[in-house]
């Protein structure tokens, strides 16, 4: 086994284990910390692909912004205790059955699908440096890029409106 393959298996094990522990742990704070580990390992996968800019953006956006927002909300609502009531037993059993069946079906589909014939494309051409990505993003995807900014603006206004305290006796 090559070192890269070993790295991949190591990162994949961390990703899957921490994603599972996110769901399994009772305390929401622990879930958030496991999710941060999961995001960092996915960032490691991006680095393995040599997609440096995406790895950095992923760490900044997910582990930096989104998880801070979630931890802040958990602490705001004082949820850092393990008092969650479980779902009814039949629902939990159904969830486990759905998980197992879905995994088996999807993995079987991809095992039996047509395998790749021949080698992968290794032209060595630069396609994922920041320069190339910026060119593609601001030439071909200019309009969606602007729409993304509009979306973020709308989300910001909506968040402020939603979390504003309502006046009593309205």
């Amino acid at each position, binding site marked *: 086994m090559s070192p*890269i*393959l070993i790295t*991949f298996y190591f990162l*994949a094990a961390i*990703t*899957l284990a921490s*994603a*599972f522990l*996110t*769901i399994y742990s009772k305390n*929401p704070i622990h*879930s958030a910390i496991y*999710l941060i580990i*999961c995001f960092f390992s*996915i960032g490691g*996968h*991006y680095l*393995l*692909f*040599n*997609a440096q800019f*995406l790895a950095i*953006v*992923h760490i900044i956006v*997910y582990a930096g912004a*989104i998880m801070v*927002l*979630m931890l802040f*909300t958990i602490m*705001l*609502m004082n*949820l850092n205790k393990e008092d*969650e009531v*479980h*779902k009814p037993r039949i629902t939990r059993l*159904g969830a*486990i059955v*759905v*998980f197992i069946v879905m995994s088996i079906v999807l*993995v079987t589909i*991809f095992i039996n699908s047509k395998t790749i014939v021949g080698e*992968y*494309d*290794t*032209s*060595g051409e630069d*396609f*994922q440096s920041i320069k190339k990505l910026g060119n*593609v*993003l601001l030439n*071909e995807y200019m309009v969606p890029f602007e729409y*993304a900014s509009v*979306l*973020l603006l*709308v*989300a910001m206004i*909506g*968040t402020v409106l*939603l*979390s504003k305290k309502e006046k009593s006796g309205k």
Partner: protein
Amino acid sequence: MGNILNEIGIENYIFLSVLLFCIGVFGVLYRRNAIIVFMSIEIMLNAVNLLFVAFSTYHQDAEGQVFVFFSMAVAAAEVAVGLAILVSVFRNLGSIDIDNLKNLKG
């Protein structure tokens, strides 16, 4: 530097993404805490992003990574609005148990 997929293979990444996505679905179905449900949705989005980057490398094309940027922007907006909704639900009901949110049930 050669293509990383020569060493790892696209199938391994497909299996990893599929399993990650299934774990996310499991979390949405299994837990009652709305914040954990949100985290599961993030896991599913990340599984899809990972597969996008894998196929972007497979085709040696930057467009897959550009799509991941948009998906990250949408995820950020979704989390901000969703957490604001959760805060207002918590303010009205005193808990964020999703099984309590059944006022619209006939």
